[in-house]
């Protein structure tokens, strides 16, 4: 499946707020999965897991992608890392168009683009010791000599708190938190510029979660890492993110500064999502007005016409049922994909003068 450029890339000037020096520029990214036919000669059903997503990520910044399971947020991470090939759109990393990169170029670039998994237990090869696995990335990229690599791996493991004897253990001999530290060490020993963290602490005990999150933040400060932080855990996201993108059924519905979003989510879906978190209070101590959505998310195989949220949204109008709202920029800088974002009861921001496609 080759990546088709949709022509949405354009010059950065089309996207107010995006800096020319953004580390990662994603434009119009889409991923469709083709499923087997159900009849002999019928069309193959398609499923749009990710649909026309654009965002920028600066060096040292953390962008969180939140949403319910199945909304396509993990797919975004896999697409950015080219673990899946995009169906459309473009990804520029460090000024290089990665859609044009071949396999060999990708293997080189992987040094700068790393991944931290949710399930740290399965993320480690059960047959190799931890230090061996941490050194492997260096080995793959031909960094230094074997002895230096071992020293670098040991230093990295030390930095994540797995010094000495722990480094020479096999994965099953470590606790869940220690395993996740090993996974982090393996990703970071290559000194990447961008790390995709896919639910990095979801599998851990609550007590261990905080330690690992703090470790991630310390490492970000020390190495100047950018994180694409994928999570369903909003209290965690609030703690780590600079900006947050809310995803529903394969599309971004709101992209905003973390604090602004949690204070006053503009999109009805973001309101429902954030209103459900007990700790979500605005700066003035006022609770975000809770919003209940009816029913279940529709099947991505058969999305509703117009706004994907319209069957569940209490504010839906005929416009919402016929036209799909584009992501547009509001006065306070956030982007929202809702026709009525400013007019909704309790809206905190007015319209911006110029419409924007995406990106804060």
């Amino acid at each position, binding site marked *: 499946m080759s990546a088709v450029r949709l022509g949405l890339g354009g010059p950065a000037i089309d996207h107010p707020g995006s800096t020319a020096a953004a580390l990662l520029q994603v434009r119009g990214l889409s991923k469709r999965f083709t499923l*087997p*036919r159900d*009849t*002999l000669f019928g069309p193959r059903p398609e499923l749009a897991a990710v649909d026309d997503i654009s965002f920028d990520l600066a060096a040292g910044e953390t962008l969180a992608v939140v949403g319910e399971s199945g909304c396509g947020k993990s797919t975004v991470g896999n697409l950015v890392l080219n673990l899946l090939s995009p169906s459309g759109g473009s990804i520029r990393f460090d000024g290089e168009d990665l859609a044009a990169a071949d396999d060999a170029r990708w293997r080189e670039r992987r040094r700068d683009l790393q991944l931290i998994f949710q399930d740290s237990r399965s993320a480690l090869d059960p047959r190799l010791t931890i230090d061996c696995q941490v050194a492997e990335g260096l080995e793959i990229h031909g960094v230094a000599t074997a002895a230096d690599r071992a020293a670098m791996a040991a230093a990295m493991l030390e930095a994540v708190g797995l010094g000495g004897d722990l480094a020479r253990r096999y994965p099953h001999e470590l606790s869940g938190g220690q395993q996740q530290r090993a996974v982090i060490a393996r990703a970071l020993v290559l000194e990447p510029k961008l790390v995709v963290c896919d639910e990095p602490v979801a599998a851990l005990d609550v007590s261990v979660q905080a330690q690992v999150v703090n470790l991630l933040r310390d490492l970000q400060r020390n190495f100047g890492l950018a994180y694409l932080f994928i999570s369903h855990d909003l209290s965690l996201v609030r703690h780590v993110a600079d900006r947050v993108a809310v995803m529903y059924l394969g599309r971004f519905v709101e992209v905003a500064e973390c604090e602004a979003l949690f204070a006053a989510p503009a999109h009805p879906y973001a309101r429902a999502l954030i209103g459900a978190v007990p700790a979500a209070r605005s700066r003035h101590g006022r609770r975000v007005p809770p919003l209940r959505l009816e029913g279940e998310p529709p099947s991505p195989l058969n999305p509703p016409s117009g706004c994907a949220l319209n069957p569940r949204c209490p504010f839906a109008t005929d416009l919402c049922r016929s036209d799909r709202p584009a992501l547009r920029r509001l006065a306070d800088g956030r982007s929202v994909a809702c026709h009525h974002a400013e007019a909704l009861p309790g809206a905190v921001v007015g319209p911006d003068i110029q419409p924007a496609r995406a990106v804060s």
Partner: protein
Amino acid sequence: MNLRYAAIKLLRAMLTLWLVVTFVFVVLRLTGDPTQQLLPDDVGPEIRAYYRTAWGLDRPLWEQYGRYFEAALRGDFGISFRNKQPAIDLIWQRVPKTLELGLATFFCAVALGIPLGVLAAVWRDSWVDRLTMSFAVFGFSMPNFFLGILLILLFALNLRVLPSSGYGTWQHMVMPVFTLATAFAGAIARFTRSAMLEVLSRDYMRTAEAEGASRLRRVWLHAFPNAAIPVVTIIGFSLGGMIGGAVVTENVFAWPGVGRLLTSSVADRDLSIVQGIVVLVAITMVSANLLVDLAYGWLDPRVRVGGRERSR
């Protein structure tokens, strides 16, 4: 069962047959000049040249392939150089005898294997179970040529109750059928046992037990019909092993079937006959697999399109 599933299976079956026919053509051409292979050694060069023209060997390869393929579709595999008769006729003469052996084996193996497997599952870990599993391992490990020879030694040469070889009366059938059925029955018993064990452990069996259905009733009315689906499959897939076994067994007991014709033709390099038999076996196997696949799709609606669910 949906049409797409059936259509894909049919297409695959045709493809397999085409591959076999093409394989025979390619291997035959690989060996060099077919007149060397198909004509006796003592014919002169002018006769060879005549046949080369007659068989179209001077034509381009694709045209030869077309002719060969068309002839194969008509069942024409050439003339046997030993008997100077069309290969297909010689093969057809032998088919009923092999069928006789095969059908008798099939019924014996099923009649023995299925009850043994069911009983072994019902009385798990009892002596019946151990006996059945030992029998299965024995059947799997015993080469049928050796079993046949042991039988001949015991019943024909020492006890003198059965004829050692040949064809004709029911006594002639006893030892070949026993030889061939042993491995087959063992495999069926083993598979039936594990299918039954799986079914017996399911919830609806516990429900039937709780409802007070008698043990016999539970096994025959509830468990067995459910275990039958995988058992049908393994019977279909064992056919290949049985055909191979038949070739050896027919040789041990001098049974005048297709298998014996095949080995003597291989030894004499009577290639027309070998070709014909290979294609015949392929047709048999492909039809049997197709029937099993279709039966499976029909019995079990969960079978998904294009799935390679079968494991061996």
